[in-house]
């Protein structure tokens, strides 16, 4: 569950492996603080999602910084992780890769709602529990995410 979720966020087997390890280390150290207000599966989902979003933000910051350094002194140090999602069939790889990369640019909550719904196949009620919001809010996030995604994909084609 954790590995697949990480893969859907990070699109790289290597990154997903590292993140899965981080998740279980965090779970091990913080299990004493788990108050049982939600199911343990929900709690683990949340930890995974938070770590994934942190990693994405960190990578985006590093890329921005490396771009600045390139502009100032022609030095580029950060290469984005290669897209490597073994769950995507070869014939659909190009199109799916494009969609997943655009999803990664969405705001964190929209990204999460879309991944949990469209890829993980969770119900809106389950997503609401994981994200600690109500079902209406999930619907709104999904609607905005899909609209934004369509616009971005159209702009790419245009």
């Amino acid at each position: 569950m954790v590995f697949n979720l990480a893969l859907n966020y990070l699109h790289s087997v290597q990154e997903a492996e590292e993140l899965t390890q981080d998740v279980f280390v965090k779970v091990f150290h913080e299990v004493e603080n788990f108050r049982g207000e939600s199911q343990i599966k929900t709690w683990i989902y949340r930890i995974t999602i938070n770590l994934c979003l942190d990693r994405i933000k960190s990578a985006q910051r590093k890329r921005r910084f490396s771009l600045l350094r390139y502009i100032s002194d022609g030095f580029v140090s950060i290469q984005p992780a290669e897209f490597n999602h073994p769950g995507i069939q070869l014939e659909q790889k190009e199109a799916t890769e494009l969609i997943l990369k655009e999803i990664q640019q969405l705001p964190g909550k929209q990204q999460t709602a879309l991944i949990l719904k469209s890829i993980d196949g969770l119900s809106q009620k389950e997503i609401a529990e994981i994200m600690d919001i109500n079902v209406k809010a999930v619907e709104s996030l999904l609607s905005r995410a899909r609209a934004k995604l369509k616009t971005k994909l159209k702009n790419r084609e245009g």
Partner: protein
Amino acid sequence: MTNEKNNIEQLLGKIEKVDAPPFLLTRIEARLEQTQELLPRRWSVAYLSLAVVVVLFNVYVIVQNNDNRSSVTEGATELASSLNMNTSNQIYYE
């Protein structure tokens, strides 16, 4: 528009679940062992730092006490001199 939406949803829905690599569990166990080793080392550094602070504090207190004692002694000598009293421990005068 609906076709595009269906297309996106279809593509995303076709992403399959993947088995985690078999060695991942071993790596997780190794990471957990590493973090557990780090914790005792941190505690020993903390204890060592505390011991150093305690020793330094004691040295400071001892030095302060010595300063106070010498200033008390000086005060007493001054008082004795002003009263024309003998400041020496000698009982017999030469």
